């Protein structure tokens, strides 16, 4: 179900410490952070919870673990249902209300930013408005971030500077000054609302939660939010995962996209082309097979193979699909699992940035493509926390009745 997080205080999520002790928040909320907020709420309200209890899960020891303890107190617990099915609940990434992620195939006029955006997949790499106006400079440049009601959208952030105090002198401790940049505009009329999708949860489960604490520094008041179910009219929710009931409309759009893509790239083969856009970061397994894959030069075909292997986690007939193009940003990420006992660092992974677009080609009909891909949770690892979730991409402003 679609849910909203209505923030009452600034929040900091997944802050990476950069140079000069500067911690910057993400402007979106990964699913694992929302899951952690749920877990914290359940455990804080759990009469059986023991902070020192260590639970072994898949050979790893964890503390603060949510599981149904099946004690007499559990029978009357208002969070019983949530606790029972916690492992089966899936969380999407959460984004500011009403925004869309700009795909990495999008470009904007270099000279006049007010001109309409173009999509490289279905349009030429030049500004159509400038061509129409007869301008000599028709160059375009890459654009990223969010778009809301046709305009760029930037999340409002504020910088807080803090220091640690030396307990003996009462003065600022040397080298302990740090700054944190948090998402603000979280008070009064300007309450910032984040949207997302939680699978396997009901209205009753949501109404049992009065307040969540999302992200870091929650003990000093950051990240306070209420969670509410989106109303019936609120069907536009980022990430908008295409529902199975929209199959007919989506396959029409896919067909139209394929025609436009083929025309734009002067393709004459019999393949059908379709694109997927990541609506969340994806943890892909770019693993080396006997030696460093990237030590020597790779041609396009080899690079496509590497991408294909990395995407192989999806449960479909791999052989029927090929990668045609990849528009992606990849960064290295090493997070922490604070529930772990001992070394809390996680394995480093290659993370594909949200907004990345992959164009596939196949000989399969569009309705089968739809069935194959809609049945998937997402690409790569940690899909139960929203990583690797995607939607079909049709270029910009593609209407079925065009």
């Amino acid at each position, binding site marked *: 179900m679609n849910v909203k997080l209505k923030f009452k205080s600034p929040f900091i999520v997944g802050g990476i410490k950069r140079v000069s002790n500067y911690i910057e928040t993400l402007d979106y909320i990964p699913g694992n952070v929302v899951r952690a907020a749920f877990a914290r709420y359940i455990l804080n309200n759990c009469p059986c919870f023991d902070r020192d209890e260590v639970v072994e899960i898949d050979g790893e020891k964890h503390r603060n673990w949510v599981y149904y303890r099946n004690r007499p107190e559990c029978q009357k617990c208002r969070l019983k249902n949530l606790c029972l099915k916690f492992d089966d609940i899936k969380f999407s990434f959460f984004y500011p209300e009403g925004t869309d992620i700009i795909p990495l195939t999008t470009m904007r006029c270099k000279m006049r930013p007010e001109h309409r955006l173009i999509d490289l997949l279905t349009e030429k790499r030049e500004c159509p408005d400038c061509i129409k106006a007869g301008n000599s400079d028709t160059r375009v440049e890459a654009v990223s971030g969010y778009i809301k009601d046709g305009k760029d959208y930037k999340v409002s952030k504020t910088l807080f500077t803090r220091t640690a105090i030396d307990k003996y002198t*009462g003065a600022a401790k040397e080298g302990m000054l740090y700054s944190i940049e948090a998402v603000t505009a979280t008070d009064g009329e300007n309450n910032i609302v984040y949207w997302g999708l939680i699978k396997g949860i009901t209205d009753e489960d949501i109404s049992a939660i009065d307040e969540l604490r999302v992200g870091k520094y929650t003990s000093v008041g950051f990240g306070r939010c209420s969670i509410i179910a989106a109303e019936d009219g609120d069907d536009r929710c980022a990430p908008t995962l295409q529902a199975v009931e929209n199959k007919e409309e989506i396959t029409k759009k896919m067909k139209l996209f394929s025609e436009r893509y083929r025309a734009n790239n002067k393709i004459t083969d019999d393949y059908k082309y379709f694109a997927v856009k990541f609506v969340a970061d994806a943890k892909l397994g770019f693993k080396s097979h006997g030696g460093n894959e990237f030590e020597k030069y790779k041609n396009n075909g080899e690079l496509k193979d590497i991408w294909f292997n990395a995407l192989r986690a999806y449960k479909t007939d791999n052989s029927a699909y090929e990668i045609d193009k990849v528009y992606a940003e990849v960064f290295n990420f090493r997070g922490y699992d604070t529930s772990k006992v001992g070394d809390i660092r996680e394995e480093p992974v290659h993370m594909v940035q949200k907004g990345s677009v992959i164009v596939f080609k196949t000989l399969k009909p569009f309705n089968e493509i739809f069935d194959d891909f809609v049945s998937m949770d997402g690409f790569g690892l940690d899909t139960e926390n929203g990583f690797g979730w995607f939607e079909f991409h049709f270029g910009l402003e593609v209407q079925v009745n065009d």
Partner: protein
Amino acid sequence: MLLDKFHNRYIVKGTIVAETPIHIGAGNESIDPVETDNAVIKDKDGKPYIPGSSLKGALRSWLETFLRGSGSKLVGEKKPCLIVDKPCIDPSDKEIKKWLEEIKEKYEGKDDADRFVAEEIYRKLCPICRVFGSHYFASKITINDCRLKDEKTYIETRDRVAIDRDTGTASQGKKYDFEQVAAGTKFDFYMTADNLDEENEKILKIIIKVLESGNFTVGGKTSIGLGRIKLCDAKVYRIDQNSLESYLFNGLSEEMGWQYV
């Protein structure tokens, strides 16, 4: 005495009475032509007050001057520094920086290294910096903003003019005015001091006595008679480890009274 654990707390309460009018400037100039050139500082309700920082700064400055002169024997051998001119631990002094690095290196890796470093710093501080704080040590005393005791007060506007030295008449374009809080105005006074040792205690006594003397000035235009204040009805309490629990649960009581005379 460092600040990592509670040893004692002194609380001074009383009333500050303006013996002469006070002018503590608001620090901003209005663009409104009918407003005063130099207004006094006021709170959100438009009531004048004496900022704690003004009072603390004036007291520190006076103590530095007094204890560097004949009063130095009251607080031991160490001569007080002038904090704005040449602090006893000056962060811009190369030798001081080197000394700080050396003491940090000396205790690096030891248990409670921060405490040893803090002790070295405290030993090097002058008696005033130990009480009023410095770059490297927090202040042991706090002075609240002195809020107006009564519901209302008078704020007077005084016109002034500069005199041309040659003609002995008013200088062209040099007329100005300023606000002053009327004499007799009463303000609340609340000061605390934490973890004072014997030497620090003497400084606290001097502070109270000078405020009670009525010869202490605060704010601007003191050379033309403004800003003289007097501490009246002063009550001083001392809370130590024995009375801490009673203070936390029941507040101040007469048994905690401290004889500072």
